[in-house]
């Protein structure tokens, strides 16, 4: 592989990770969606670049799926939901932004420390890519637990999926079926989340998870 191919793939993966960090400190729902769109675009670019540099045409389909689903369909739909339901547009973090960033950085360190020794016999690109995608997955999880708003939890979940796809396009030989199924599972999850949000909204008149939890009658 040429140096250019390696560098570009590395850079695009890093952009996806960077967007994960950006997701962590957004205070407004719309900017959160914008950053999520950017992450999906970066992921699309990564997939397309891998398809080009490795000469694996099926990765173009992955790129296309990511572009249509994650960069266009889901953000637009979430946008419409927010407008339609008149959701309060600020995000109330459960964990302070600074602390979240510190936690995020340590998670990235952890994944690098973890992945690099484990995959000592893989190619350099695969190793870097795995470390990056594990970081994206962990950051997505961190986002899910550090936000109180249901919409931002959905976005956190989607960014976990982004991390998985990043791993999928980086590891050579991932069959198309797997990517298709991941894409469709995201789609299904999104639909379920959408219906779920509507129902929560109808029932409780809020999407703030903290307020919803008080309805369970048994929690703290």
């Amino acid at each position, binding site marked *: 592989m040429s140096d250019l191919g390696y560098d570009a793939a590395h850079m695009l993966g890093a952009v996806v990770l960077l967007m994960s960090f950006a997701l962590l400190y957004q205070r407004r729902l719309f900017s959160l969606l914008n950053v999520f769109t950017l992450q999906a675009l970066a992921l699309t670019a990564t997939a397309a670049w891998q398809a080009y540099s490795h000469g694996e045409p099926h990765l173009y389909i992955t790129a296309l799926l990511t572009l249509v689903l994650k960069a266009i369909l889901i953000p637009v739909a979430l946008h419409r939901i927010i407008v339609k339901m008149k959701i309060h547009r600020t995000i109330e973090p*459960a964990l302070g932004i600074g602390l979240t960033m510190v936690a995020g950085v340590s998670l990235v360190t*952890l994944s690098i420390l973890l992945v690099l020794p484990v995959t000592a016999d893989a190619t350099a690109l695969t190793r870097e890519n795995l470390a990056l995608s594990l970081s994206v997955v*962990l950051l997505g*999880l*961190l986002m899910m637990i550090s936000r109180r708003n249901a919409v931002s939890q959905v976005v956190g979940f989607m960014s976990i999926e982004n991390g998985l796809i990043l791993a999928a396009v980086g590891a050579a030989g991932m069959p198309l079926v797997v990517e298709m199924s991941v894409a469709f599972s995201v789609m299904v999850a999104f639909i379920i989340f959408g219906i779920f949000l509507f129902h929560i909204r109808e029932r409780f008149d809020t999407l703030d*998870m903290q307020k919803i939890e008080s309805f369970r009658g048994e*929690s703290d």
Partner: protein
Amino acid sequence: MGLVVSAIAFLFAVAVVGAAAKRLPQAPTVVYGGTAAACALIALWAALRLAGGGADADLVLPVGLPWIQAHLRADALSAVFLIVVNLGGITASLFGWGYERAHHESHGASQDGPVLPLYPLFLAGMNMVLIAADAFTFLLSWEFMSLASWLLVLSTHRDPETPKAAHLYLLMASFGTACLLLAFGVLATAHGDYSFAAIRAHAPAAGAAALVVALILLGAGSKAGLVPLHVWLPLAHPAAPSHVSALMSGVMTKVAVYAMIRVLFDLLGEPEWWWGGVTMGFGALTAVMGVLYALMQDDVKRLLAYSTVENIGAIVIALGLALVFKAAHTPVIAALALAAALLHVVNHSLFKSLLFFAAGAMLTATGSRDLNRLGGLIHRMPTTAVLALIGAAAISALPPLNGFVGEWLLFQAILNAPALSEWSLKIEIAVVGAALALATALAGACFVRLYGIAFLGRPRSRAAAEAVEVGRAMRLGMAVPAVLCVVLGVLPTPLIRLFEPALRLLVEAGPFDGRAYQPWFWLAPTSAIGNSYNGLIMLVVIALLSVVLVLGIHRKASDRVRWSIPWGCGFDGPDPAAVTQYTASSFGQPIRRAFGSTVFRARDHVDMPAPGDTRPARLSVTWTDPAWVVVVEPLARAVGWLAEKANRLQFLTIRRYLTLIFLALVVLLVMVAVTQR
């Protein structure tokens, strides 16, 4: 080996038939018949293998965790226990078939939980434990066996005592399995391979081995009923239907003994002398305590369950002795002790099954297991009475029955103690021998009490006065173990010969090594004392003496003119319950006074009315179980406290759950990252 696995698979198939019992009127016959057939097949296979030298039979099934598979192996030791388990299975099936039918007739449609689908599963579980050859298969089968028997205990859930007993059983079973899990974990730490072959090849370090010994004594000991972990046993065993009680008491405890032998003699390699010392000490405590408990019980089945505790004590003493002699490099004596243990395993499975069947027969005939409501059954149920007498005499170790041979062999091993070099062991074995002798004598008293109160005297209740003999299947189920008790008592040597491959496997010697003259009717083990036993002579002498005694009594006593008292002093009333005669409690009172007042803090309280007051005087006895106070209550409190704390986890918010998952993931990743470098 394929045969055994197919037979076990057949048991599962039979269980499916049992599950459809509501729709199939023939289901009991199919289940019990099928189970008996499968058990007979396995027992026959095991006996033939042993007779052919006990070569190993291996099989690897591609099931279970993908990279581990299920290793099965039947060596000589497994074969011995396969015979024990399946012999018990055959007789219990025979008896159970009649028992279930009798209960169905008397109670109409059964209100109880299902027994039919679980019964074959229970036997299948026990067989699986015996042929497991890796820790995973072993633990899985062990837990399967525990849960099947637990469900069988719960089949009488309408009895108010049962749920409590079942709860305690579940608790102790989980505790035992946890201990075994840890033990196998320690055994496999060094190399990470859980198959028995790998564990055997890598003997653990001294500290790890000590830990394993402790964990096995706790884990298998709680299943076998070692004091002070026995508390669940006398509650759970009697709660099940009688043929299941017989299996649990007579057979499942033996599976626990198998686990002890497998680990202590086989997997752990060369033993150290103190392992045997500790094992023996627990055995002696168990034997004496078990029989003392048994002496204080009025419930027939509970009494039998406590007597199981005592017999397990004797077996464990024999195991401890075998360990001690193996560590002292006197393998022939170790083989003698181990032969005593295996023989007692067989014996106890026979006579304990027989006695539980007899208890079941009494329960069927009178509807009661309370000794104080039985009595005089020898007139109403003559066959059961004779068979129960054989069982009671055998468990009291009277010659020429099999119980005597087992204890005799065990004492031969004990008498070889002076050959040891450790002084502490010499003294301990003397004490253990005395304790065993005490336990044996007390067991005799215990079964004189059981038999005398239940079968002799006059009926103590209307139900006992109107009892009728049980059906043919139940009588046959009792007759088979009774005949075996006599045969093994008269001719024990062929059986010990049959077991020799197992002894050679475990201690690399046989009990008859170095003796030139060994006829099949003569039991003369190699030992420093050189005693021998001949069941045939014993049988002839006892038969002759009995004939002389009976004739003498008949001639001298029965022919006389008999004078009877005009007032029966309450002995001659029309109401059986009001008849004044020895009760179970009054028979046990001297021994309760002598031992119980210190061990159990037993106290008699007499409520004597003042002169002129016409209400009756009352005597009440109270006693506390030390094991309950020392072990169960603190344990139950600790578990309850932990459960209370853990219960909070049920009520977290979804974000907290996510956080917990996330933290667990991060911790695991950190662990991987740290261990990878």
